[in-house]
């Protein structure tokens, strides 16, 4: 017998959890156990914290929550002490005794551990005062720091599954679809297709209908889907159940990357809990509605994120796309009408149902509603996941939230939309980011990857990098994509090695247009974008490579060398000590010399010199 057999029992349970929370333990320590923080050692910090609490006899009074990603992964492991919301970044096991003694026992701050804003240099105590968080609007991602993803009770306590109950008992499927349409929600997987219209079309086709979640997240540099599934899996599950109610489906699938083991684990736990509670399976909450969700783990193929390839993969076949004369909403997985949405799209659904379409549609721009989570990474001071209303300018995201470019370097471009997107130069930084604006300058918003590049990034190399990626990932079944990408890559590789010829740029443009027009699936049709936008905005860099045989950014090894500027070198010896080739010599406090014949261009000296005396020539 399921624990929650009807709507009342869910509501009663919710009240019970809420009142338990308000009468609960005084202190709550939220420790991030997401993948990013995990890589910096959350497990050891947790162990040290628990030992310290036991030692001080505080285990009963303090609740410790291992949460999903808080977004500020670069500063991990992250700890927040509630009720105040005191933020401690980069905590280590050896800090635990002081944190417990001072902050947890005596409400005092550990001065040495407080967050120091890298831009203003000010010390900031509370999480919500930190510029990185302060300027965000975290309606989808905000609960991540407050709930333990392995606890269904935590999700129910913050109002979880009430949107599902509302959809089951207060609304007809048509009404649910109308609400989603009215909200203006568009797919977060990259294409931006209106979600309500997709659901409606799927509902109108006959057969066994399927509801599928795309958690393949192939865009390198983007990881919001991973963080949502890891940190708040129930929000995605609840969205899918509401979708199933609206569409009239009883079978759901989550297609998730095998490379995301923690997401798979947390999702598996969440699904089991739902079944135990009666929120999945037969007769959900006594409504008569049946629905369950299976997990399918993908095998590291980018193209499997494409809808028809994903469905082929779900069926147990190699994931090759097919022509979409018939759309998957009509005939998809196992020939049934299949509705595919992205992880973040699903996570938006419960919020829309709870707060209403009008509330939701008030956020964002005319044609792009709600918020979007961006993965702000690369050469930017504050890296992590950032949720802002649609239409927020690139400048605000990169400079106000992101803190600008580290080490006083110069901004060069921001890459959006992953391998299907493009590189946007400085003159467009005031553009508001939504589905339509970025495409006007040749890029796309895509799934939300935002990779910031500075003066040390070579744009020709970036273009080559993406084509190399796409060559590996092309499924190879159509010629323009398979052969065209290979040819473009050959040309770019030649340019990067100093063998570029006059006419190469024009040839790249020609090939690009051909691939865009004649490829079968979205991988091919968008593959030339990174090349075409870098040619458009950074043609001079291509020309420097081809005509002058120079890589101004110092990336393409055959096209530059490092040298020491005798005017600026202070003779501090730092570089000489670190050079693996012993290529740098000189007397202390005198300008040093760099022996080109020994240098392997590893760049260690360039990164080491604090005086910018190592120069690229």
């Amino acid at each position: 017998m399921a624990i929650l057999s009807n709507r009342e029992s869910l509501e009663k349970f919710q009240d019970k959890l809420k009142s338990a929370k308000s009468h609960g333990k005084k202190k709550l320590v939220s420790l991030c156990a997401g993948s990013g923080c995990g890589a910096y050692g959350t497990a050891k910090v947790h162990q040290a914290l628990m030992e310290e609490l036991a030692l001080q006899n505080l285990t009963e009074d303090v609740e410790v929550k291992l949460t999903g990603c808080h977004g500020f992964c670069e500063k991990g492991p992250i700890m927040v002490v509630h009720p105040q919301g005191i933020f401690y970044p980069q905590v280590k096991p050896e800090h635990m005794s002081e944190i417990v003694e001072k902050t947890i026992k005596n409400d005092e701050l550990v001065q040495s551990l407080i967050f120091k804003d890298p831009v203003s240099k000010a010390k900031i105590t509370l999480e919500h005062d930190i510029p990185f968080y302060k300027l965000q609007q975290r309606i989808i991602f905000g609960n991540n720091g407050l709930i333990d993803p392995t606890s269904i009770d935590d999700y129910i306590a913050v109002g979880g599954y009430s949107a599902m109950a509302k959809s089951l008992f207060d609304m007809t499927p048509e009404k649910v679809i109308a609400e989603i349409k009215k909200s203006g929600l568009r797919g977060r997987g990259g294409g931006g297709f209106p979600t309500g219209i997709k659901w409606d079309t799927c509902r109108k086709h006959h057969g066994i209908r399927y509801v599928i979640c795309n958690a393949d997240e192939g865009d390198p540099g983007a990881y919001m889907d991973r963080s949502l599934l890891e940190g708040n899996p129930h929000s995605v599950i609840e969205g899918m159940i509401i979708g199933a109610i609206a569409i009239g489906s009883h079978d759901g699938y989550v297609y998730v990357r095998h490379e995301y083991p923690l997401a798979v684990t947390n999702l598996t736990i969440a699904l089991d809990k739902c079944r135990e509670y009666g929120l999945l399976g037969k007769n959900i909450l006594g409504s008569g509605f049946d629905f369950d969700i299976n997990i399918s783990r993908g095998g590291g193929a980018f193209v499997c994120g494409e809808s028809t390839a994903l469905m082929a993969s779900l069926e147990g076949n190699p994931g090759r796309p097919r022509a979409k004369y018939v759309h998957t909403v009509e005939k998809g997985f196992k020939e049934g009408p299949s509705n595919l949405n992205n992880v973040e799209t699903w996570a938006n659904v419960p919020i829309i149902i709870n707060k209403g379409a009008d509330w939701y549609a008030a956020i964002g721009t005319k044609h792009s509603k709600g918020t979007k989570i961006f993965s702000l990474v690369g050469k930017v001071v504050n890296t992590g996941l950032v949720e802002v209303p649609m239409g927020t300018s690139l400048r605000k995201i990169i400079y106000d939230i992101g803190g600008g470019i580290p080490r006083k370097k110069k901004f060069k471009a921001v890459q959006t939309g992953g391998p299907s997107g493009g590189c946007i130069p400085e003159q467009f930084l005031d553009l508001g980011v939504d589905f339509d604006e970025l495409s006007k300058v040749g890029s796309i918003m895509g799934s939300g990857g935002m990779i910031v590049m500075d003066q040390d990034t070579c744009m020709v190399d970036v273009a080559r990098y993406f084509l190399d990626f796409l060559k590996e990932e092309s499924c190879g079944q159509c010629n323009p994509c398979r052969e065209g990408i290979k040819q473009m890559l050959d040309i770019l590789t030649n340019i990067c090695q100093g063998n570029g010829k006059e006419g190469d740029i024009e040839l790249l443009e020609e090939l690009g247009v051909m691939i865009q027009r004649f490829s079968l699936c979205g991988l091919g049709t968008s593959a030339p974008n990174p090349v075409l936008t870098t040619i458009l905005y950074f043609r001079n860099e291509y020309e420097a490579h081809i005509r002058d045989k120079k890589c101004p950014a110092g990336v393409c090894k055959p096209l530059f060398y490092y040298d020491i500027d005798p005017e600026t070198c202070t003779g501090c010896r730092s570089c000489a000590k670190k050079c693996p080739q012993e290529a740098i010599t000189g007397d202390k406090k005198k300008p040093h010399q760099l022996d080109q014949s020994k240098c392997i261009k590893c760049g260690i000296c360039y990164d080491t010199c604090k005086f910018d005396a190592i120069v690229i020539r």
Partner: protein
Amino acid sequence: MEPAIQIDLKKIDDIIAHYHGNKEALLMIMQDISDIYNHVPPVIIPILVDRLGVKKSLIYGVATFYKTISLEPRGKYIVSVCTGTACHVRGAEKIADALQQKLGVQEGQTTSDRLFTLKAVRCIGCCASGPVITVNKETYGGLDRTAAEKVIDNYKQMPLNGTA
């Protein structure tokens, strides 16, 4: 010659049973087998043909299409260097160089003591902590050359039957 691998048939059948012998789960079944042997030993293929009722060609098709599957034996520790865009612009290439030198193998190869296989992967979703590498299921972030070399040293010192 490869030393013959002892295949524990019961384990294979447990995995297949976990997916109810469902042939749609072929890829996941092969991934789980890989977790035990670090690759899918070709001797298992006839067993899969028999138990799942799929064609041998499909198994090879799936094994070659998906990068998580290898039919060749790999090292005890699979070292994957992320070469996703965020890690790329933060110097993933330098990490890859350092590891190639350190291990004395190229990308895709296994060390002669069968301890390490070096691989490149495209983004493992820890992009804010880049450059990152993974060793089996552990992730290491914020690396430079020296830190990456240290990670390898730690695994070298680990007792051979120990877990990471």
